[in-house]
């Protein structure tokens, strides 16, 4: 915004000029002001009305919803808590401590899983009602997978911005060929997947050792970066069935681990893309002098590079967190009961023979969107800046 206050030269203006011409540089004319405000107010109404409707529907009961439209609580209809009671007051496991209890239980179960070859610890069954379970799952899955994705993605992005990679084209071709052979062997010849994968990998390393030096054509960092980013084009429906079968083969359907991994990979392209631009724009001199002082690459990355890119990191983290929080397709395929997330809870209100239970569904949606809206309001400037940097420089 400008604080230029100098007036246009003409002082005695006609009515039309007063209406249509700006009074000063950096100001708007009265007519333009009215038009701009009406458009902005109209659009705000368009944006807010669906949210308003969802919120008031959450306080209706089946009778009010089915009778027709009622617009104002207390004036038109008497708000009730039916939709909320159906979620949050079902049994004795719906107490306020349920979420904390569930997080502890998940931590215990993960430790039990890790130690299972050594000690025989039985995994505990969750004692929690459905909506709290889904809420906890959503939080745990999106936070852990965002962390994983940011760590792995920004490391890869940093490496691609600073280290020269020259993978050989022939090796990659060989890898693809062996992967295809392994897949065909498992599906049509009935070889066990584990045997096929091991033999394939061993063959790849042996062949790469033997023939690698004869290959000439190489790829560069730009090619690797493009390859990673292009994974975002992949529609989830292409990969979701094979991913389902992979997790089934190792018995991990309906676990948090499966969803965490899949979400992390799905968002890796965005993280790598945006973070790469932040890293590439940093002045390299700092890192070079640190290197001369004997810092390791991990040390440089952790102590110098990451703190410098904190705003970008925050924006990308927030974006990834939101995408994970809202994800639906993978959750439908990969979770059945224990690992269900909030979007599944929303969709589940459409399943019964009573039709859609709008008031209960809206209560779930409200619970689901409150955290993200708070985050959005607090951090929207961050996101705009972060996304813009990626978009312009990409």
């Amino acid at each position, binding site marked *: 915004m400008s604080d230029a206050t100098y007036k246009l030269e003409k002082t005695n203006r006609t009515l039309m000029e007063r209406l249509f011409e700006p009074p000063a540089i950096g100001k708007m004319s009265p007519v333009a002001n009215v038009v701009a405000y009406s458009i902005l107010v109209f*659009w705000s109404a368009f944006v*807010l009305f669906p949210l308003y*409707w969802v919120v008031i529907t959450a306080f209706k009961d089946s009778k009010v919803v089915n009778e027709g439209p009622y617009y104002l609580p207390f004036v038109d209809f008497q708000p009730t808590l039916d939709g909320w009671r159906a979620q949050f007051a079902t049994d004795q496991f719906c107490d306020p401590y349920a979420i904390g209890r569930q997080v502890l239980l998940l931590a215990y179960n993960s430790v039990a899983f890790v130690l299972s070859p050594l000690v025989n610890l039985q995994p505990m069954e969750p004692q929690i009602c459905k909506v709290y379970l889904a809420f906890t799952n959503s939080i745990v899955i999106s936070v852990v997978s965002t962390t994983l994705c940011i760590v792995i993605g920004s490391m890869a992005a940093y490496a691609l911005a600073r280290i020269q990679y020259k993978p050989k084209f022939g090796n990659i071709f060989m890898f693809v060929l062996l992967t295809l052979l392994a*897949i065909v062997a498992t599906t049509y010849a009935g070889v066990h997947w584990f045997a096929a994968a091991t033999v394939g990998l061993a063959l790849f390393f042996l062949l790469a050792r033997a023939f690698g030096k004869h290959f000439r054509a190489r790829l560069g960092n730009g090619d690797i970066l493009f390859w990673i980013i292009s994974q975002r084009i992949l529609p989830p429906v292409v*990969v979701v069935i094979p991913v389902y079968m992979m997790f089934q083969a190792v018995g991990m359907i309906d676990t948090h681990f499966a969803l965490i991994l899949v979400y992390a990979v799905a968002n890796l392209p965005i993280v790598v893309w945006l973070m790469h631009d932040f890293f590439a724009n940093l002045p390299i001199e700092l890192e070079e002098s640190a290197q001369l002082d004997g810092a390791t690459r991990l040390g440089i990355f952790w102590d110098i590079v990451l703190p410098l890119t904190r705003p970008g990191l925050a924006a990308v983290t927030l974006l990834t967190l939101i995408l994970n929080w809202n994800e639906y397709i993978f959750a439908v395929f990969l979770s059945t009961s224990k690992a269900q997330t909030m979007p599944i809870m929303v969709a589940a209100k459409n399943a019964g023979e009573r039709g859609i239970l709008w008031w209960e569904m809206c209560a779930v949606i409200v619970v689901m969107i409150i955290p993200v809206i708070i985050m959005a309001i607090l951090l929207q400037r961050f996101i705009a800046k972060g996304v813009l940097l990626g978009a312009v420089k990409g």
Partner: protein
Amino acid sequence: MTNANNTTDQPGLFPAGLSYRETWGEWFDRHSGTFFIAPAVTLILIFAIFPTFYSIVFALSRVKFSADGLKFRFVWFQNFQKQFLTNEQIHFLGRLEGMNAIGWIFSLAVIAAVVWWLYRSVRSGASWIGMTGRLISAAMAIGLALLLGATLLYGNQWGTLMTTLFYVVVGCSIQFVIGTGLAFLCSQPIAGKSFFRVIFFIPLMITPLGVGYAFKMILDITKGPFQPFWEFIGLRDWAWSTDAWAARWFIVVGDSWQWIPFIFIVMLAALENVSKDQVEAAQVDGASSVQIFRDIIWPQIVPVAATVILIRMIEAFKIVDLPNIMTSGGPGIATESMSLHSFFLWRANDYGSSAAVAYLLLIVTVILCSSFFNYVVLKQLRKAHA
């Protein structure tokens, strides 16, 4: 592989006779190039590349359930052939009988334009890789033009391919125009713009599932909030969900409600980066707002605009939640996107066809997005950096 400094290579650092043993930390640092990128590459290989190849197996097989899991039978390209030539043709491509004069004129015009474009790029001496890419884009353009001529311009029923393209092209255009317009308004010197900025940003945060149900509820003819309005204009017994065009447009409305904020925030940030001095200089010289926008602001934001459209396009091809919730693809298949088509086939346990449709979606997305990237985005970016 790495350019990390390696002190152990320097001779004379250690007295003779004292052999230096590398510590684990130093070994790790020497290979840091590999360790930095290995996790990302491994994860993408396992969860993106491997499943993509595995999908080929599905797409080329007939999959049957049996007592011990799935049984695959190799059937070559039968699943793809089915989508293009046999009983599934109407579902994927639409009804193709007959093509009227307008359709032919349109198709021939597109073919002529494409051939002229190819001729010009041959004359200007494009590399053979560039020519291959152009040939693929040209084939796609001609195929889509013929399809458009045979379905839309003749009034025939659409298939899921056309519906997906409708969502992408119409949705992205509307979202870009409105999003940029709002961003332009919010970049003007008006009071309370940070308030509007926060409000306009909210829909992006909401799960597509929630958006779908919210719009289904609001657009309900008898119980929705606009019931008096529908009754007033005499549409009491009309249901938009049984009208193909109305249903498609309402899905675009829902999609736009969610995605305009994305265009909005990016374009707003771009508009705020436009240099104020030039704009004010033009204002002092008496240029109108239209002139200022066209000649000063627009050239500076075009690169961002092209990129943001590309990002939006990539996501728009995957649309599945909104049509699934609002109309379940109905009436008939009028609002079914290709993702949804694949999802329905999967639900009907036709895994082979499901993978084939998903693959076709991938091919269409890759060709159209890379064409857009090569011929529009790169051009604008080069112009901006030149």
